[in-house]
């Protein structure tokens, strides 16, 4: 897993260095001597390889120390001078994390609930309308849903804030926008697997024992039917991360997303790396958790 993280860090570094322009470009052209001093100050002088190894902490930097990723130093931001990447992340990540967790919970609970209902009432109007709604939600992108939600719930009727961060109400619209397509996706997954499970022998046995319908569904079937959803949780987190870039832009949230976009446009290599490292670590860790959860839910896997 560390290998994955390391490769992503490496690829990111060289891609950012390959972009045209430099973080020190401003409207006024800088004298060469000043530019060189700036580059040296941020350890961005020398060949790309030297910069990369300095960043990793394998080569002495300007002050003659080893201070890079290996030593846990994320470097200062090149564009937002005097602020370290760690500090910037510390300010923005709580917002992104709150949004992400809210959307994650909404997508999983909503999707599982909708999908189960559709499967249990297979073939009825409830099933048809739930699946129709799901297809609509999958097809309409978040940057259409977002502005429309703002238009109706924040402008037409003044129920919820237009954007920004602060009150609890301000998280509702962004979380709904972010979670929307994945509620639908999980509902479809859940419905298919629930239908399959409900047709199996052990469900018939449970019914034959005289268990109530609720008990059969929520105690016996749900546990098995959840497996495909659990294995989708890793990709879901990745989707929510990228999706949050758009949602944070639409709703003007002070999260890491807009910072990330700006840092790309500014070639702020350390800030880009910082965000990518956090995202990747999060995903890798989450995938490990999902793997463990999977084996706990499905005992057959440990037997193999």
């Amino acid at each position: 897993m560390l290998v994955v993280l390391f490769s992503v860090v490496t690829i990111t570094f060289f891609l950012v260095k390959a972009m045209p322009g430099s973080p020190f470009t401003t409207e006024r052209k800088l004298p060469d001597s000043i530019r060189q001093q700036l580059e040296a100050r941020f350890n961005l002088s020398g060949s790309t390889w030297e910069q990369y190894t300095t960043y990793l902490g394998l080569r002495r930097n300007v002050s003659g120390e080893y201070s890079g990723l290996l030593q846990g130093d994320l470097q200062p931001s090149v564009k937002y001078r005097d602020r370290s990447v760690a500090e910037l992340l510390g300010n923005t990540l709580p917002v992104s994390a709150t949004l992400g967790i809210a959307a994650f919970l909404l997508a999983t609970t909503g999707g599982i609930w909708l999908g189960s209902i559709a499967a249990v009432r297979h073939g009825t109007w409830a099933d048809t309308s739930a699946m129709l709604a799901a297809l609509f939600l999958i097809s309409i992108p978040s940057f259409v849903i977002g502005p429309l939600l703002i238009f109706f719930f924040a402008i037409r009727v003044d129920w919820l804030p237009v954007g920004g961060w602060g009150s609890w109400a301000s998280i509702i619209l962004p979380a709904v926008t972010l979670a929307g397509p994945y509620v639908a996706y999980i509902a479809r997954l859940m419905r298919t697997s629930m239908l399959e499970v409900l047709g199996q022998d052990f469900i018939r046995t449970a019914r034959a024992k005289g268990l109530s319908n609720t008990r059969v569904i929520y105690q016996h079937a749900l546990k098995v039917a959840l497996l495909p959803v659990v294995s989708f949780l890793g990709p879901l987190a990745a989707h929510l991360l990228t999706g949050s870039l758009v949602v944070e832009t639409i709703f003007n949230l002070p999260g890491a997303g807009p910072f990330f976009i700006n840092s790309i446009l500014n070639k702020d290599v350390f800030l880009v790396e910082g965000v990518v490292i956090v995202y990747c670590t999060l995903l890798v860790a989450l995938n490990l958790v999902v793997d463990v959860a999977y084996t706990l839910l499905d005992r057959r896997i440990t037997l193999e």
Partner: protein
Amino acid sequence: MNAAIPPGAWSRLRKNPIAIAAMALLAFIILAAFLGPLVFTADPHATSREQFSPPSVAHPFGTDNNGRDVLARVMEGARISLIVGLSGAFISLVIGTSYGLISGYAGGRIDGVMMRFVEILYSIPRLIIIILATAAFDHSFKNWLNAGGHTVLVGYSKIIILIVSLGLIEWLTMARIVRGQVLALKNLQFVSAARALGQSHLRIIVRHLLPNLTGIVIIYLTLTIPAVILDESFLSFLGLGIQAPQASWGSLLADGATSINPVRSFWWTLVFPAAAMSLTLLALNFLGDALRDALDPRAQR
């Protein structure tokens, strides 16, 4: 040999009114995107003094903040988005099918390693890497095109890069599904028979396995196209994809979203691109579902 496309699939599809509606809608959108400019000749890049004029006879979809005609821009956006979606999906189809075929056919350790790699790719934020890659390569690709004398293509370099890079990330699901199908197919008797006849691996793959994958590949192709269109518009929405004055649905929606505010809402700059894009994606997703019902033998009642 069991048929790749089960008999009756086409007639089942034709009996499905949703599928027919989706196909008609898609045909209309494609025609409007590519032939529409012949009928409605406004220049999508021409600015005018008429900023934010509401829909009228001269401008059926109104005009945007630079006085450009929204209908013409929606048509140009449709053209670019559809081209990116179709070509990107085609690239992912080629990669995904060959990857899945090789992995499934080789089996054993190779299969294990190859599928582990797919899982790893699933778990990293691929779009973020793509954002970086498009930003990194656009400039040098333009230089390369100029140096190679392909000056006609320079204006399209961003589109080409988007197509290639999106094709490079959207093949994972296709690979998984093809592999699953190959695993099921390769133990069937007709494959054993071909092997017993001494046919080469390549011949078995091309002549016996590939034709049997047609159905499933078509289904997932219809579902990959909307995924690529979504990715492209996502990047363009963030200002990292198609650049003005060129338009794609994503960049049009970004313009539209900024014009919605409590003071005055120029709804037509948002609603028309949103409707065009959503309807296209809906039609493609409905068609994909209908195809699955028609082609997937397991779904037959």
